[in-house]
């Protein structure tokens, strides 16, 4: 279940406020799931206090997404800045499909120089924050489809 959202960042609203909007939608979505206890998400995301707003405010999340993986969810969030922010969406409400999000959710934050050491320090010891690229989406699709090789189907469709 792959989804993406483009959140309006600076100058529509500050990097701090756009990061807060992302935290709100992540918290509301994940805690909809009965698998994820209420109150457990904010402390994890608080590890990124100050760092998240810097990434958002500096335009580092314009094209490189923060990705939530909580099977069956796979949601990419970008926080767009500059003139493009005026055409972006609000963070929105709960991500559809969140009710079945798995307890072992992961939030993948991209490596962004020179912030990477601070991001890795913030994520150290967390069971949910990962610094780096998320798993391959195609592998997720294959697993979710019960082992059907979607790549092969696409190749067959293309050749027919």
């Amino acid at each position, binding site marked *: 279940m792959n989804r993406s959202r483009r959140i309006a960042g600076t*100058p529509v609203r*500050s990097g*701090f406020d756009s990061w807060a909007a992302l935290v709100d939608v992540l918290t509301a979505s994940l805690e909809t799931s009965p698998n994820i206890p209420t109150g457990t998400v904010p402390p994890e995301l608080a590890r990124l206090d*100050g760092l998240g*707003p810097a*990434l958002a405010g*500096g335009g580092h999340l314009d094209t490189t997404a923060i990705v939530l993986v909580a099977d069956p969810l796979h949601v990419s969030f970008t926080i767009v800045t*500059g003139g493009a922010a005026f055409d972006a969406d609000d963070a929105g409400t709960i991500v559809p499909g969140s009710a079945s999000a798995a307890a072992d959710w992961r939030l993948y934050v991209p490596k962004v120089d020179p912030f990477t050491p601070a991001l890795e320090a913030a994520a150290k010891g967390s069971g949910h924050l990962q610094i780096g690229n998320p798993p391959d989406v195609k592998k997720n699709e294959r697993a979710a489809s019960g082992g059907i090789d979607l790549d092969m189907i696409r190749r067959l469709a293309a050749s027919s």
Partner: protein
Amino acid sequence: MSTTSTTTYTFTHTATFLADVIMSNMLGILTALSIDSTRLRSGWQRDLSAIAAWIGERSLAKVVLECQQPNGTTSPIFEFPVRYESTGKGDESFVKDNAAIARWSVKIGSVPAGTTFRLVCTHSGAYTPQPGWSEANRASTAGLASRSLGTIGSGPHGSASAIVYS
């Protein structure tokens, strides 16, 4: 029949954008220098709001990031001068450039362990007091070599650049 939409950029938009760019670059510098940035991160909203408010009233001249080494030396020192347009350039959008400081941070390496930082804002004319900020004198840059890192962000009503003294 065709339709179009326009967006009016206000001075507040420019102030928000430049404050974000300056704050983000300062955290990037502290991280690159391995200086504990906890204080900047924990006061992020307060300092961002203060800088944006001062840009919004056109009173902010420079944001200064001073690195204070354990031996009493203050170096390097980063200045972020803000330049204001007398009239907004309505057709100009918002541009940021993180590359200059990223390139510089690769070269500088680190500062001695235990180095801390201080933020100082200088003003041109009257300004509105902001929570958490008090009167202070900035450190001297005498004897330090300066190097321009270029424009780090610009909007329709102004721009911010960066200079390092070391």
